[in-house]
């Protein structure tokens, strides 16, 4: 087993960076894809025409960055732990819309956020043991 790198090479830091890039790219993709949407085109199911938006290209850049970080994470952390943790992005998106865009969050959505937080806590618990092994 290789020693876990410290500093910028710390796989947990890379996981955070990967999540941050995904978070921003999701907003850029939705906005960019909608801006250039042409649902009458036969090829539009492939999403190729989304490339007409500069925002989609910025999103692709961030996705590449998050992908490189993610590969690094996969080298050191079991995917059964890393992947569920990476889905924290699914609650950060509605929370981001609530905090920055002033969108409201329904009771049902708060319940969903609570479930994800509990799930994340359960998955994150064995991290201490993994750290010992690493």
């Amino acid at each position, binding site marked *: 087993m290789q020693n876990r790198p410290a500093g910028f090479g710390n796989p947990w830091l890379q996981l955070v960076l990967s999540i941050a890039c995904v978070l921003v790219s999701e907003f850029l993709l939705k906005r960019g894809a909608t801006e250039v949407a042409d649902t009458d085109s036969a090829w539009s199911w492939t*999403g190729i025409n*989304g490339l007409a938006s500069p925002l989609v290209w910025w999103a692709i850049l961030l996705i590449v960055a998050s992908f490189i970080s993610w590969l690094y994470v996969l080298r050191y952390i079991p*995917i059964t732990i890393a*992947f569920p943790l990476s889905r924290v992005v699914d609650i950060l998106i509605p929370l981001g819309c609530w905090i920055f865009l002033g969108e409201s969050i329904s009771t049902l959505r708060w319940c969903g956020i609570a479930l994800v937080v*509990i799930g994340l806590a359960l998955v994150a618990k*064995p991290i201490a043991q993994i750290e010992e092994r690493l």
Partner: protein
Amino acid sequence: MSFLAFFLIVVSLVSYVAAQIILKRAMDATKTSGFRDVRFVWRITVGIVLMTISFFLTLGLLQRFDLSYLYPFQGLSVIFITLMAAVMLKEKLNTRLVVGALLISAGIVLVSMS
């Protein structure tokens, strides 16, 4: 939702899950055989191709449906990847991880449907 849309959502999900498992296997192998191994290059290439297919299908679907509508399907990837990692990569699963994955998936579905 048309059959075509549902089919494309499933293809996108399966591509994504398969890509993650293949990429994990590729990165695991680098610990013993390094980055210049032919199998590493092959697996990374297949993983990237599958991720790309999933990406463009999602982009196409996003132009027709709200992100909140498509997200429940992406939420299912947590369960599928956890199970596939246990079966194909022999990663150890315990009750805590399984319950955690189920709660995260259920939570994502609730967040996106509400």
